């Protein structure tokens, strides 16, 4: 080979990288979203697997509900009305199963298509990346909502056991649906971020497990670290008085260990199960018999965590008017914050997906052949 003569070659002097415009990335039209969503649903619904999954869901939720209604009777629970307990159990069953099923709906949405060789042909059309991502999200959410809708009869069944406001069913369905769309968004983000479908599915499940299981664990584990020795007002029997009907009680200032859960309550606040309990709007806070309503109890407990106990009642036998006001604790709802947190995670996943779908891309998806 003779050496090349550079004479005739005008070598470009470190050319400027071309200006990339992705101005159309976030353009969204109803037509585009519908096109993608329709495609996604057709792909899924056509496979009879999906119908089978719905039937299995119906049978499982229905079977468990019937079993529950057999177990949760007045004899076994000692409660005058098992309605709220039944309702809470069915709600948690639906939410739990929903959180198990939903991640699979989007966790392979982008990388699965990429592996199947159908993504790039869609990207080069006039669909914007946002439309592709929104279409996939909408289809997955619709599918998740189908599971939810199939479960409604059993929620209604629990409603018939009494003592649950009918409006709770609407609130539960809406809150669960919004939690599921968050999970869809998280799955979509991972599917765009990770090239292997198994990887993105595991990551999505881990994130959901983190929200559901890790948050109460962290709350428990950090509990010792939020203890503070501090002076509190204690309402306790006067020294020397006897424990009987006319026990005299008085306020004393003592140094006690107070757990400052107002620093960590949010760990429980973003837990989907707490959000649904708080958002369900079952029995009123001041209900004297609230122990029988699991959703209401969880709601009140978590809401109470936001204000540390500065007044302690230890005058157990006092029968007179209790001077301790039901603690001026913050009774404002937690669920809007928790739901917003979950939706923010879902939105983050969605934004990641859109950015990853934007073309022309600087990076080639990993695993794609070079040249």
């Amino acid at each position, binding site marked *: 080979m*003779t050496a*090349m003569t550079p004479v*005739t*070659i*005008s070598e*470009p002097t470190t*050319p*400027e*990288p*071309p*200006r*990339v*415009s*992705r101005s*159309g990335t976030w353009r969204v039209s109803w*037509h*585009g979203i519908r*096109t*993608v969503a*329709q*495609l996604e649903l*057709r*792909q899924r619904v*056509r*496979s009879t697997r999906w119908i089978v999954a719905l039937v299995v869901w119906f049978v499982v939720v229905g079977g468990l509900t019937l079993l529950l209604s057999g177990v949760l009777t007045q004899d076994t629970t000692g409660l005058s009305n098992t309605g709220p307990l039944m309702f809470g159990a069915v709600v948690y069953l639906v939410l739990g199963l929903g959180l198990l099923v939903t991640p699979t709906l989007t966790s392979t949405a982008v990388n699965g298509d990429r592996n*199947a*060789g*159908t993504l*790039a*042909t*869609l*990207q*080069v*059309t*006039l*669909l914007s990346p946002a439309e592709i991502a929104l279409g996939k999200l909408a289809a997955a959410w619709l599918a998740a909502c189908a599971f939810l809708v199939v479960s409604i009869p059993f929620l209604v069944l629990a409603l018939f056991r009494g003592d649950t406001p009918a409006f709770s069913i609407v609130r539960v369905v809406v809150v669960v649906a919004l939690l599921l769309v968050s999970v869809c968004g998280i799955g979509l983000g991972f599917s765009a971020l990770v090239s292997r479908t198994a990887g993105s599915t595991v990551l999505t499940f881990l994130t959901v497990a983190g929200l559901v299981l890790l948050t109460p664990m962290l709350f428990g584990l950090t509990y010792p670290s939020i203890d503070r020795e501090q002076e509190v007002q204690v309402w306790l029997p006067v020294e020397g008085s006897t424990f009987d009907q006319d026990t005299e009680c008085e306020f004393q200032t003592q140094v006690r260990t107070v757990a400052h859960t107002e620093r960590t309550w949010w760990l429980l606040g973003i837990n989907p199960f707490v959000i649904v309990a708080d958002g369900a709007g079952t029995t009123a806070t001041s209900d004297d018999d609230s122990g029988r309503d699991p959703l209401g109890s969880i709601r009140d407990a978590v809401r109470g965590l936001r204000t540390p106990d500065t007044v302690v009642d230890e005058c157990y036998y006092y029968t007179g008017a209790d001077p301790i006001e039901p603690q001026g604790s913050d009774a404002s709802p937690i669920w809007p914050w928790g739901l917003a947190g979950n939706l923010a995670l879902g939105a983050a996943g969605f934004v990641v997906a859109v950015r990853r779908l934007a*073309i*022309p*891309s*600087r990076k*080639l998806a990993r695993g794609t*052949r*070079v*040249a």
Partner: protein
Amino acid sequence: MSIDVADTPVVPPDAGSPPGIVVRGVARSFGPVRALDGIDLEARAGRVTALVGPNGSGKTTLLLVLAGLLVPDAGTVRIAGHDPVADGPAARARTGWMPDAFGTWDTLTARQVLLTFAAAYRIPTATARLRVDELLATVHLTEYADRPASVLSRGQKQRLGLARALVHSPDVLLLDEPASGLDPRSRVDLRVLLRRLADEGRTVLVSSHVLSELEEMADDAVFISRGRTVVPETITTSSTWHVRALSLGALTGWLTSVGASWRPGDTSAGDEGPGSVLLEVANDEGAARLVRDAVAAGVPLTSLAPVAGALEQAYLTLEEERR
């Protein structure tokens, strides 16, 4: 063959036909691999341009850049006058891209697949239905229109992929190995179809390894090797013709008498026996004139055909650079 990366246009300007694809100095690296290292090419409207190169020479990467999927590190691209990097949607609206490997949504029917893409290109539904029926007929898939894509054979899927690339009547067609997996009949159909699309004024860029195929359908060829355009030239197959006659002496005698310059072809049977010569002919009209004049002059002409294998010859010189 020398390596030449001069800045001269790849294809000599052809009056009247605007360039459909213009690529100038496009480079693209993947980590340490320089997949494209200065590509210059022009593909003209109304012509079929072959993209030829060894495996790993950067053909697919180049097509990804042209389709608007990859940002080049350097250089400029124009697709029907639009820059796929700076103005993606405008360029993509005019580009039909058929990748070398692609999938179909197995649970959708062929018709649904095409209708989905028509919707993705924002073609009104009524227009889309007509267009899809037309395309299904074009690629001979009408009888499979309502069967799920999963039952289609590889070649049928390939044809569906071609129909998909055509759904929005693109001005510029980028086809990556479109003939792979096609039966001989479909290859002929493909050739005819590409010819027709080019004749409609579209720009067609085809990469393929089946050089004899390319030769028959391509008007121009661009060779790339190691990510660079190499000795770009217009295919000159039509200018060298193989002329065979029953009597070599009569043929050569007549050619000499009319002052044509010829090179000996098949001379095994001697002057009196049948033989052939190689002759430079300007174009098809020239060939027609040659036949007319030769017959008029009493030369026992038996065949007249363009020399095949020019592409192959050129390709084989690139062979040493295979990687």
